[in-house]
């Protein structure tokens, strides 16, 4: 398998990579949370590959390895059943640990940097500044009540 040019995956690579990403961060359909195997994360990984030749090389080798493993298991990665796919990714993690760790790191970064994903976990999709979040200040009465047992115990530092 060859990537055509820097950061561009060829069709076969794209297929394997998409399947891997779907395994790394699976979807949660109940909460409409997509898997990592979407165009945005793929595009993030392409950008990384375009600027980091060693990642591109490692990825090319790793994806070819994954395709071989799938062929040995009887088909293409996305055609295997769920358990087989997980087993294959585990195998890849064992035989290509450095590539797999880098892929994991970049996948997490690409996926969670997307504002719409952040928003699924309660954060704002917007930059944190200037709006931030609203958090109510505790009243003086509430804080006095909360700290009362601590104050009642008295001094806890050693005077010297």
């Amino acid at each position, binding site marked *: 398998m060859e990537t055509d040019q820097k950061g561009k995956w060829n069709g076969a690579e794209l297929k394997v990579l998409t399947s891997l990403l779907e*395994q*790394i*961060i*699976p979807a*949660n359909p109940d*909460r409409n*949370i997509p898997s990592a195997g979407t165009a945005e994360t793929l595009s993030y990984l392409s950008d990384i590959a375009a600027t980091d030749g060693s990642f591109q090389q490692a990825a090319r080798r790793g994806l070819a390895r994954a395709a071989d493993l799938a062929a040995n298991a009887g088909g293409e990665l996305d055609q295997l059943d769920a358990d087989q796919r*997980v087993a294959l*990714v585990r195998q890849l993690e064992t035989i290509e640990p450095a590539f797999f*760790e880098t892929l*994991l*790191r970049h996948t*997490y*970064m690409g996926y*969670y*940097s*997307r*504002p719409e*994903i*952040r928003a699924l*976990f*309660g*954060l704002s*999709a*917007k*930059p*944190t*500044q*200037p*709006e*931030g*979040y*609203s*958090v*109510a*200040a*505790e009243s*003086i009465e509430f*804080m006095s009540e*909360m*700290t009362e*047992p*601590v*104050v009642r*115990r*008295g*001094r*806890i*530092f*050693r*005077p*010297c």
Partner: protein
Amino acid sequence: MTKEPVDVLIIGAGASGAAIAWSLVETRMRILCLEQGPHVHDQDYPSRNTSYELNRYSDFSCDPNVRQLPQDYPINSTGSEITPVNFNGVGGSTINFLGHWPRLHPSDFRARALDGVAEDWPIDYATLAPFYDMNDRITGVSGLGGNPAYPHYTPPLPPIPIGKLGQTLARGFNELGWHWWPSDVAILSEDYDGRAKCVNAGTCDLGCAAGAKGGTNFTYWPMLENAGVELRTECRVREILIDEETGFATGVLYHGPDGQVHEQRAEIVVVACNGVGTPRLLLNSKSKLFPDGLANRSGQVGKNLMFHPLTGVTATFDEPMEGFKGPMACSILSQEFYESDPNRDFVRGYGLHSGRYTTPMTYALGGYGTDSLLPWGKEHRQVFDQQYPYSAGLTVVTEDLPEETNTVTLDPDLTDSDGIPAPKIDYTVSENTWNMIRHGEARAEEALLAAGARKIVAKGSDKVWWRAGWHQMGTCRMGNDPERSVVNGWGRSHDVKNLFIVDGSIFVTAGAVNPTSTIQALALYVGDCIKNNIANLFD
């Protein structure tokens, strides 16, 4: 190229450099500060970008070895269990610091007298107290007065909200009858001195674009530049020069933004380059008089490096904790185990800090200060759906004792972009600290369960957090004995009478609290001593 001489030359525009400049400004001496980094404008802070989390792993990483910006110097920490982190620019590491602002305890200044370890400081808490207060007013510190862990003082502003997470944990501490208190923070709970209050954005490490966090780029520097202090940026000092006959510092050689080396002469030289940058600069300043590095007749320059080794315990609760809302490192602090107790298998103590929680990407990459990726697949889904929103944790922040074997030296090969030798760190966590960590993890677990945690989900392994060398202390320590210390009780070098050091490198012990309120109080104190001794400063 030689420049017009100045009265006071300060090297480094971070926390300590700014504070001493402010103290000296009323003397009307001509003050110049040389800073290797640029102004970092708040419009450019990543917290204004949509994909702000990515900057935490590139140009706004706290790790200079990751950032690799032109103003950064590399640090070889392959021989260390913790890597030092920082920021270089106007404001120094207060640009990306988290604003947690506790003071040292009175007993921290007397570790030898009280506990038979380390050395005593040549000054005490009472001496520093007015400078803590002064600095709190300038910085705009929020907190609740009356903390029984300290002699009485009241921060100028009311506390920031401790939020749902802080309230939950506080109930756990109350259940156990343990000390806790809302954290003192260098973050505005109300508009103050022309600056706007905190908006709870939660990304304090990415630069506080609101200006609510008391980085010296928002507090001291605007006042100083108005008052006529000259700040020359992108100027990296390579060496402090010495007059071989008088033994006095005459000024420095520095690399300017024009790529040229310049000489700057000065009557007084003040070093404020942080606990790693300062010993590095002194060790790089060799002469016939000081073949082992400037001001190093004691051999103590670069020794006794202290961090605050730390680890964390995380739990999940039944309800969402909203941990991403509010200042990152500051909610509540328990000092129940801060003071020595002869019944424990360690001397000195630690704090249990409750920060907030972090953003999803950082959570997935293992948390702030660590590098340990979350699992992939089904487990990943479980962690994010069932753990992340419900998480709260406690960090065990331990006191590190000074050890001569924990050092900053010069790397024989590694250099910065100007060819200046880079620092090399050799550092091992001591057995005393490990005992504290184990004790602290067990107590943190107890507190979290008492607060109603459903499950403890993560504990420190047998490692301390790697990227948590936020606090760098002890490498040019103060003392009365010139054989055992680098500077005297008011920051003046024992060996070079017009050379002062004001950053965390002059700490004698580290305490178990974040150091910057003490670093700045000390810098103000040194400034005050210079003013009081001006008539016979060099005697």
